[in-house]
């Protein structure tokens, strides 16, 4: 008898778990922002992309981000052209992606919490493991993720011609800002 009760309890607990898991949905944004900034001797430059797709699975804390390289808008048309044609070769590599896990996702609350995203980033056809620090705010209606990190151009085989190498920093500061909403089909 006792054994039977135990099995029933296990089943009930399992069922509860399943329903809880079902309730935790996916959160998504189709217009996240990413900007990058480089300070250099000749001129600082900055580019913005407001069409970033980012998805968080609220059950597991997994995160996936996709970025269109051609969506980066520069102040100068010439810079945008050089960026797409010579540096990131966006015809060959039209997208950059990040796939990762938000560490300790369950402990994040509706107050801004410092967290880390561990995963793989790929830019210009080169994939690298990365840990990105972020500030995350989580509630039922939204998951807000923002932060900044630096990337080294050389890590992604992005070559800067020697003529202009002084005017472009080797290290680029990237800032991001995603406001995820529950995904309804």
């Amino acid at each position, binding site marked *: 008898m006792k054994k039977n009760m135990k099995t029933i309890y296990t089943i009930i607990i399992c069922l509860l778990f399943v329903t809880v898991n079902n309730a935790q949905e996916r959160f998504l944004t189709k*217009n996240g922002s990413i900007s990058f900034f480089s300070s250099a001797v000749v001129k600082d430059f900055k580019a913005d992309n*407001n*069409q970033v797709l980012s998805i968080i699975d609220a059950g597991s804390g997994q995160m996936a981000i996709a970025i269109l390289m051609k969506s980066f808008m520069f102040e100068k*048309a*010439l810079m945008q052209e050089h960026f*797409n044609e010579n540096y990131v070769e966006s015809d060959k590599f039209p997208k950059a992606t990040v796939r990762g896990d938000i560490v300790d996702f369950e402990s994040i609350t509706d107050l801004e919490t410092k967290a880390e995203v561990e995963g793989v980033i790929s830019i210009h056809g080169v994939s690298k493991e990365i840990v990105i620090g972020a500030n995350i705010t989580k509630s039922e209606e939204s998951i807000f993720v923002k932060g900044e990190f630096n990337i080294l151009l050389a890590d992604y085989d992005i070559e800067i011609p020697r003529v202009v190498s002084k005017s472009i920093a080797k290290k680029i500061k990237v800032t991001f800002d995603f406001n995820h909403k529950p995904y309804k089909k």
Partner: protein
Amino acid sequence: MKKNKIVIVILIVGFVGVFVAYKMYNKPHVNVVETKSDITLSASKILNDFSTDENAANKLYLEKIIKINGTISELNIEKERGIITLKTRDNFGSVLCHLSEGGMKKMKSLKVGQTITLKGICTGFLMDVILVKCEIIS
């Protein structure tokens, strides 16, 4: 006397060089309003092209000025920027049109369900086809 002439010629060539370089450096962005569109098609067609063969569609549409028509399924303003979502026959994907500043001014008069023609620059396909710097044509 001859020396002076050479100096003047060098100076002129120098000035022209600097001027051309300056012009190139400040080359303006494509003016979507005034430039004729390269391609005209419907929202369903462009989404279908991207979801069947993304590489081929990238070659056809990326960085092109595209005139697109469709039915509005959503009107959003995020961070003071207007975004119009166009319905397609596909249930999952749509066409996202990010408006220019000029386009945003005309956004107020629009309603969900209305058919619309927009002109913008295609930057690619994620879950949806994305157009930026869109202008509202009609």
